């Protein structure tokens, strides 16, 4: 698990309220998300991710997790993995047959993927920053209509994957 957001007093919001920036205005953010997703899926889940058009009907029954981050930047990230891809991804991560997976393992792998993606994206975007992540939590997918959020969908051989990330007020 990552350095814990809730346990690090040094990373609490400053007394002056933090104004959220817009990730869609970060010149490298979109490329970073694409690059990190590809690297993480290939290195640790032994599969390939390619950018795909967003057609979000698949996200309703998807397995999803959310994570918050703090430190030099505050915000949150959502990950959705299509229902048909969740078991193969977990099995690949653990080196198990999909039939051997427990429900706990299925959830924990989605949480771990969320954690790894978020930490890697933020570290690559802001390598000189302070970073603290909350524990990832399984949750339903949410659409974020607000401006400033970044979202990408990916196709993987096993199904689909969606990532949304946005900055929030500290």
């Amino acid at each position, binding site marked *: 698990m990552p350095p814990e957001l809730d346990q690090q007093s040094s990373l609490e919001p400053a007394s002056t309220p933090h104004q959220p920036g817009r990730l869609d205005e970060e010149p490298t953010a979109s490329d970073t998300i694409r690059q990190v997703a590809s690297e993480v899926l290939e290195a*640790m889940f032994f599969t390939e991710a390619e950018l795909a058009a967003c057609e979000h009907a698949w996200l309703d029954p998807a397995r999803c997790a959310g994570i918050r981050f703090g430190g030099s930047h505050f915000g949150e990230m959502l990950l959705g993995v299509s229902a048909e891809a969740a078991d193969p991804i977990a099995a690949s991560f653990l080196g198990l047959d999909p039939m051997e997976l427990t429900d706990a*393992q299925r959830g924990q792998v989605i949480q771990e993927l969320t954690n790894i993606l978020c930490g890697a994206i933020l570290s690559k975007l802001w390598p000189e920053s302070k970073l603290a992540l909350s524990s990832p939590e399984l949750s339903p997918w949410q659409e974020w209509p607000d401006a400033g959020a970044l979202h990408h969908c990916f196709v993987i051989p096993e199904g689909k994957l969606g990532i949304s990330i946005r900055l929030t007020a500290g």
Partner: protein
Amino acid sequence: MAYSVLIVDDSPVMRSFIRRVLNMSGFEVGECTEAGNGIEALAQLSAHRVDVILTDINMPGMNGEELLRRLSADGTLKTTPAVVISTDATNERIVRMIELGAKGYMAKPFTPETLRDELERVLGDRDAARA
């Protein structure tokens, strides 16, 4: 020579993944044990030394920072190299963990090959220091 490894992480699936990747990497793994936090790790190490420790940072009970402090302060254990494995690849975090005594740092994502290379480097440094 096969090396004994202690994996310290509160996530059971991450411990399983690290164990799997160690076996895939070509690194010569002997006994491989696991602990869920720093307290469990120190309890295991008091009874049984290992060649290298792979540790997460944030864990309930005793986190990776405190584990590194305890290892560095222990006359017997301070020569056992610890490698941090974390999602946090910010420069400040890496410098902090090295200052606390980590001999290596692996940022996720990592491949079996990069893990093997880091372990061989760390254990090579340890052996050179002992010679």
